[in-house]
């Protein structure tokens, strides 16, 4: 740790705090108005701006649920299925791949690793055309499968797992398990996975959120109303004639889409914020 000979000038410290408060305000302000407006009815919202909540939270919620054009309940359900499945597949198979490349020596080990590192940041959009055609030919249009199955190959999650496994899995442990007659798969599931738990939890959260927020590919694959995920519903709301809309309902639907994530984030923030860099990036 650095020795501090002196503290910073108080005026400078004050300035730093003012900048931080300003940025924090920017980050929170819009969500504050969102929450406030989700508790006000259409008429109140049209009257203007308010810092104080209204009393229409429940009625807005009921109105959104009752709207046949926006199938919110099935939207939440579909989003939950896709996000949970993505999180499970991405973390399990990334850990498996990371362990495979870390613990075994084989000819294609190095090329396989270099290959994954090269595609680490390749966007899925570049192959969207072929992907949609493939999904069509597999008769999986308007199903949720194509939204989570590709998560089995998640290069960024793999990289995180690989960095983590390097720093926290002693090979002696694996060898001891082998001596005890543990099969390779059992060694992975019983010995390695428990050690990977912290990394898996962090990546499960990121994968879940990523899938929950994903819009581009789902919008190309899903057109059935009862298969739509939340981002597609939001987009549908945007393309509907906006002026005819009950603004209370609009704010409520946005609230439903983002507030659960914020609540989970606030509960787990310490792990998430630390997890952004945990093994993820070398200095």
């Amino acid at each position, binding site marked *: 740790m650095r020795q501090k000979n002196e503290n910073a000038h108080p005026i400078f410290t004050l300035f730093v705090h003012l900048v931080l408060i300003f940025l924090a305000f920017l980050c929170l302000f819009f969500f504050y108005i969102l929450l406030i407006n989700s508790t006000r009815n259409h008429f109140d919202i049209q009257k203007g701006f308010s810092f104080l909540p209204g009393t229409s939270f429940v009625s807005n919620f009921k109105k959104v649920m009752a709207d046949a054009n926006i199938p919110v309940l099935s939207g939440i359900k579909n989003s939950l299925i896709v996000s949970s499945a993505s999180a499970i597949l991405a973390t399990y198979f990334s850990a498996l791949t990371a*362990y495979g490349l870390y613990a075994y020596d084989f000819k*294609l*080990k190095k090329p396989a690793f270099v290959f994954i590192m090269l595609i680490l940041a390749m966007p899925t*959009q570049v192959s969207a055309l072929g992907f949609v*055609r493939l999904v069509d030919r597999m008769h999986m249009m308007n199903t949720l499968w194509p939204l989570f199955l590709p998560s089995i*190959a998640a290069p960024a999650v793999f990289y995180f797992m690989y960095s983590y496994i390097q720093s926290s899995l002693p090979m002696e442990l694996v060898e001891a398990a082998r001596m005890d007659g543990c099969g390779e798969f059992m060694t992975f599931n019983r010995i390695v996975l428990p050690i990977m738990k912290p990394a898996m939890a962090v990546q499960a959260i990121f994968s879940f959120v990523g899938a929950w927020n994903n819009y*581009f590919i789902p919008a190309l694959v899903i057109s059935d109303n009862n298969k739509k995920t939340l981002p597609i519903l939001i987009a549908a709301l945007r393309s509907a004639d906006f002026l005819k809309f009950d603004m209370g309902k609009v704010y409520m639907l946005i609230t439903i889409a983002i507030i659960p994530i914020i609540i989970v984030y606030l509960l787990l923030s310490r792990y998430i914020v630390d997890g952004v860099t945990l093994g993820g990036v070398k200095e």
Partner: protein
Amino acid sequence: MKGSTKRKSVSYAKWGYIFILPFFAAFLIFQMIPLASTIYYSFFEYYRSGLNIIGPNFVGLENYKALLGSDFTKYMGNTLILWIIGFLPQIFFSLLLAAWFTDLRLKIRGKQFFKVVIYMPNLIMASAFSMLFFALFSDNGPVNAFLISAGLIDKPFRFLSTVVGARGLVGLMNFLMWFGNTTILLMAAIMGINPALFEAAELDGCNHTQIFFKITLPNIRPILVYVLITSMIGGLQMFDVPQILTNGKGTPNRTVTTIIMFLNNHLYSKNYGMAGSISVILFIICAVLCIGVYFSLNGDDSKPKKKKKKAARAAKA
């Protein structure tokens, strides 16, 4: 570490292949084959006209020629401008905050609170966030109502009908969604710098600014490169925010239409030939950037070390 994995008598090599098989199989099916067919279609005339499907007829590079004659370059320009508007404040504030958060002479109260708050927008659904901004910044939305009641303007400012307003909002949202993430990455990088460098600099009487430019910046260069390149790739992917904010129209006058929105339009109208050629150009650009990411993460370790030594010498000199 690696030495201890040496096989004794049993060969475990096949398990390596088995363990990495699902990843590569999924990648082959859902990425490689689609990419191959995307490249393939980019050489074909293949689109829908009314109810008829024209093609696929092989046309060579015609799609690429047509692309260069279309608004492709304009949308590339839009994407670049929108990315820069968001990236400049993002890197500026991230560097500033990362330096402040890691400066032990600065006593920041509620450091954890600020970190949690600035990272939060990164997890927000971009489409919902854009819908929120659309509602808040609409002509009779809360922001205009607030500005009028505060006496700052006398009639609503039409954010979404002016080029500056619409582009500014997209940039603001990208900035808000990403500066927290970048701050945390840079903080980790700064905390990884050898503390002796800072001590030496402080003993020699360097001030905050000198330490930042002479020690911090040169030492976090690999991470800065990583942040820059991944942000460029993210910028090329920009879609949700401008799409929802402008309802896919890129208003005013297609000045916020990004390259992926252009691709999306072609995919929706089943204009596969053109969609293919856009994808291929994007793929080539991203492939180059991905090589950059690879080297920023796996660059040989000698370089940063040399730099550290140089910085140490500079600090001592």
